[in-house]
């Protein structure tokens, strides 16, 4: 930015010259025309709205008519179209990309998820509106917006730029009083649910030997591992396949209080990622796993979202970053 006060002073002395106002206004108009006539968007999309955005760029609707071509490098892009649901993990990336873009830059929030979070608003991993994170110029509603709506939003943005207005808006509604609960305070009464799993249960100390036996019988393909929370206990389900005889085998392990089980990743290397996912979402610790870290949620996340005791439907929610935290993030800019 440079020294703002000094450059304002320069403009002040320049403005006293005869005809300076006329010159500045006309060059301003020229440059505003240039800016609005070649808006280069960042080729970047998040979810289903991005599919509609691609449709808007391709043959039938053709945004190249308005002089828009996508640039892959944020340094050369003028416009960021946030098309899709903004998750907590993605919000950081969006912020980084926005900071990397060279100004003057504009943002279109396309689709109800990017505007407000829509029906994912209360979900543990979703930011309710991209304007919590970056300033937005034009909101394009729709779920997803039609190509016509996209074009309408772009024309609106062109009007804004052409008139020389800048309207970067962070979410300016008052920050609500947020109840800060500690994760331990959030408890739900346990519901009784019936264990409907009918297939074979084995003891968890027997897991390694059992799967070694199965592997020697030709069950070399670990199809999946999954976990189910029955409130009183968590059941791990293993599903193995034999690619020669085309047979499948399924067995379960019941975990009561001790959430520890030995890892299968030494026997089936395909177990590595699936066990990480189960650790991330259910908090089951796989002993002997080479790299037991979170795979989907951010590293500093509190709690395990697919557990029954994890409260999903609270807006003031202890796990997700709050509006206040994002406000802090903004002022650090």
């Amino acid at each position: 930015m440079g020294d703002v006060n000094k450059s304002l002073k320069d403009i002040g002395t320049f403005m006293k010259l005869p005809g300076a106002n006329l010159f500045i206004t006309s060059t301003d108009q020229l440059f505003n025309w240039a800016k609005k006539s070649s808006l280069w968007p960042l080729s970047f999309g998040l979810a289903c709205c991005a599919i509609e955005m691609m449709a808007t760029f391709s043959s039938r609707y053709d945004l190249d008519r308005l002089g828009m071509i996508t640039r892959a490098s944020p340094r050369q892009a003028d416009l960021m179209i946030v098309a899709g649901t903004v998750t907590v993990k993605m919000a950081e990336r969006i912020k980084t990309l926005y900071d990397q873009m060279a100004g003057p830059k504009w943002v279109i929030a396309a689709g109800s998820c990017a505007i407000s979070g829509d029906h994912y608003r209360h979900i543990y991993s979703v930011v309710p509106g991209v304007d919590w994170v970056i300033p937005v110029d034009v909101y394009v509603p729709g779920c997803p917006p039609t190509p016509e709506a996209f074009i309408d939003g772009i024309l609106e943005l062109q009007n804004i730029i052409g008139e020389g207005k800048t309207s970067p808006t962070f979410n300016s509604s008052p920050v609500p009083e947020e109840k800060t609960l500690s994760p331990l305070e959030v408890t739900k009464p346990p519901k009784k649910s019936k264990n409907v799993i009918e297939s074979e249960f084995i003891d968890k100390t027997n897991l390694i030997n059992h799967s070694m036996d199965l592997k020697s019988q030709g069950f070399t393909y670990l199809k999946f591992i999954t976990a189910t929370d029955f409130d009183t206990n968590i059941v791990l389900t293993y599903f193995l396949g034999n690619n020669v005889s085309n047979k499948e085998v399924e067995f379960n392990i019941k975990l009561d209080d001790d959430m520890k089980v030995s890892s299968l990743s030494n026997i089936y290397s395909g177990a590595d990622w699936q066990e990480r996912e189960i650790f991330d979402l259910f908090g089951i610790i796989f002993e002997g796993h080479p790299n037991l870290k979170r795979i989907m949620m951010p590293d500093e996340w509190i709690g395990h979202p697919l557990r029954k005791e994890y409260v999903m439907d609270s807006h003031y929610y202890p796990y997700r970053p709050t509006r206040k935290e994002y406000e802090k993030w903004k002022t650090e800019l």
Partner: protein
Amino acid sequence: MFNSFIEFALPIFKTISILILIVAYLVWLERKVAAKMQSRVGPYSVGYPHGWLQPLADALKLMTKDDSIPKNSDSLLFNLGPVWIMVVSLASFALLPFYFNNPMLNVDLSFMLFIAISSLIIIGIFISGWSSNNKYALISVLRMTAQIISYEIPLVISLLIPCILIGSLSFGEIIRYQEDTWIIFYPLLGQLSFIIFFISALAEGNRIPFDLSEAESELISGYTTEYSGIKFALFYLAEYVHLFGICVLGSIIFFGGSNGPFFSSNILIVIKALLFFTLILFIRWSFFRIRIDQLLKFNWVKLIPLSFAGLLLACLLKYYMDFSSL
């Protein structure tokens, strides 16, 4: 003193302005041809018939963009890169007779000098990619250096074949020789050297079967990843100036330069170069990208032996013709 400066500077100024104008509309032409091939319309609403003000808008907008220099980069080299590329690609036009009746620099070895100057471009690309302090730029630059250095060999040798048949390395001589028949109609050797030239010109100009340095899906936008604003515009223009230079070279050496079927004029060089450019555009918008190892293997195993065989054939033919005429 002042008059002699004007005499020196005016043709340079004229050539550069005409060249920039042509190149700006080459970008517009490319966008239009691409749109036509994908059944779109292309630039339309910026400037009344068919978005003819689009290049102007793009250039003005790029001038108003922020200029960002990466934190730990070598800022001297980072700023030198785009200037170097632009200067080198414009300097090679001093040798080409494309606008005035005579080229600005009239030397006997103009063909060799053109090749020598335009191969300096790789230095500018290398320093800009290296000083960006960006891994995508570095990978792109390494690929591009390997590509351009290997494809320079078949390019030069395929252009030497017509030069040997004609017996001169100056563009004036080459154009004068083709008053009756163009080199492209020379039996066997003409077509062979043209095909080799065409393939290596695509690689030299970084166009699509060989645009590995700007592979968007892998390398963001290659060595220009960290450049914004006017520096990026310089890269963009320089790439097209270089490509247009290669097209002019092709039109002089293979398509008779200023010689036409009905009349002869230097404007024909530009028209032929534009047609040649459109041919490259058709290739660009209908082909896929090939892998770096396939690219280099194709060059060293097929193209270079073929071009050397053509060169040998041309030498033998020339020797036999000279000998028999004695």
